[in-house]
């Protein structure tokens, strides 16, 4: 299965925060959400750590090739 992207992770984190901060959560469930949340935070930070912008050009037949950004 594909790794969820940043958008997916952040959306799930929002859900976890709401669920955890609700007043009526069972402890076991809270623990599970806590663990899941921390995992998503780590994964999201990993994504954010990518510093190199990847630019590609879409060609005929859905092929791509890297594009020189030309702003050196």
């Amino acid at each position: 299965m594909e790794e969820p992207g940043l958008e997916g992770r952040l959306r799930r984190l929002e859900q976890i925060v709401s669920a955890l901060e609700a007043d009526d959560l069972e402890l076991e469930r809270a623990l599970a959400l806590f663990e899941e949340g921390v995992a998503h935070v780590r994964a999201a930070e990993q994504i954010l750590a990518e510093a190199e912008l990847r630019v590609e050009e879409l060609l005929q037949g859905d092929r791509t090739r890297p594009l020189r950004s030309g702003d050196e």
Partner: protein
Amino acid sequence: MKADRKTLDLFGSSEELEPPIELETPESPPVHVRAEPRVWSVSEVNRSVREMLEDYLPPLWVAGEVANWTAHRSGHRYFTLKDDQAQIRCVMWRRDARQLPIDPENGMNVRVFGGLTLYEARGEYQLTVRQLEARDADGLWRLAFEKLRKKLDVEGLLDPRRKRALPRHPGTVGIVTSATGAALRDMLTVIRRRAPWTRVLVRSCRVQGEGAAVEVAEAIRVLSACGRADVLIVGRGGGSIEDLWAFNEEAVARAIAACSLPVISAVGHEIDVTIADLVADHRAPTPSAAAEVAVPDAVQLGELLETLPIRFARALRGAVERRGRRIADGGERLERAMRGRTVPTRQRVLRATEWMERALERQVGWRRQALRAAAGKLDALSPLATLGRGYAVALGEGGQVLRRTEEFPPGLRFRLRVMDGRVRCDALGPEPDEQS
């Protein structure tokens, strides 16, 4: 007799017949003989006139009002240009008419550039128009814009409710623009600064000139269909209304409306509004602004992500505390219920109470273990954990935390929880002179 332009001197010949020539002979009186005048054919006359018009009169600008505008199936346009005293027939060939953003309306004041000529076959004097403009410079462009805008509005394509929300954290941004323009460079600079993890997929095309609209529309379609982008930016830098015209054409508008991705339109400068801007899901005043709105800001995101584990831990602590309270409440309530009964067999009640309390103890004990496990996990996972810094937690037989020296009589078996596990210990006892 083949007419030669140089020798044909239509306007030089006299209308009058030559006077008769007198021939004298000895026997007879004078005889009058007429010489034949030059008589031209209709074709020769028309051709000559046409040649003279075209040769002697250079092309010129003529202003007037349009009437009887006809767009023929062939693509050629036929119309009359008139003022209040005279009119002239005009023709605009398809090749030249192609550049018109829209056909003018009858009654419109225009100026045309073209050459005077004669249509030989019918002997009709006419103006062959090569350029046509409305009297105010952008008139035809604005007319075309308004017509298309109304048409799309009626279809509901400009409805604000149609506009889709942009994804907040796109994985891939698609861009339709010229590969060589400054617009692409600016957008990449902004994306690199704000969200360098974003992938960018560019489909380049011409953004002005004849045929550009078709290329832009095709680029939008292709990016939409490849399924790899989460949002699309369509844009170009500033220019004249003619330069930007492709983004006012129906093909581009329809491609944007049909696009499966949300579209951000960024054409020209702030003051230029094109049809593409009106149909798109979001209009940005410049290409750079489009990039700003398309991607999130790394700094803000980073800050948010930093705060989340703290909020998690806080919420978890709350859940642990609530659980503790509930158990205590439950025990109290049970006690009260038991005391409230007034049954003769107090013994039986007492025994029942004891039994229930023991059961509750077992339950509570089990819950306490779960709590300890939870607390332990919290400690383990919390980014606030201080274990990593060398602090250790002493745990007694029942898993309770030992904090004070008096809790460590010599010989006490206890466990030390350090960063990566537990250590079995025997206490030697408190150190003397240690203040508690």
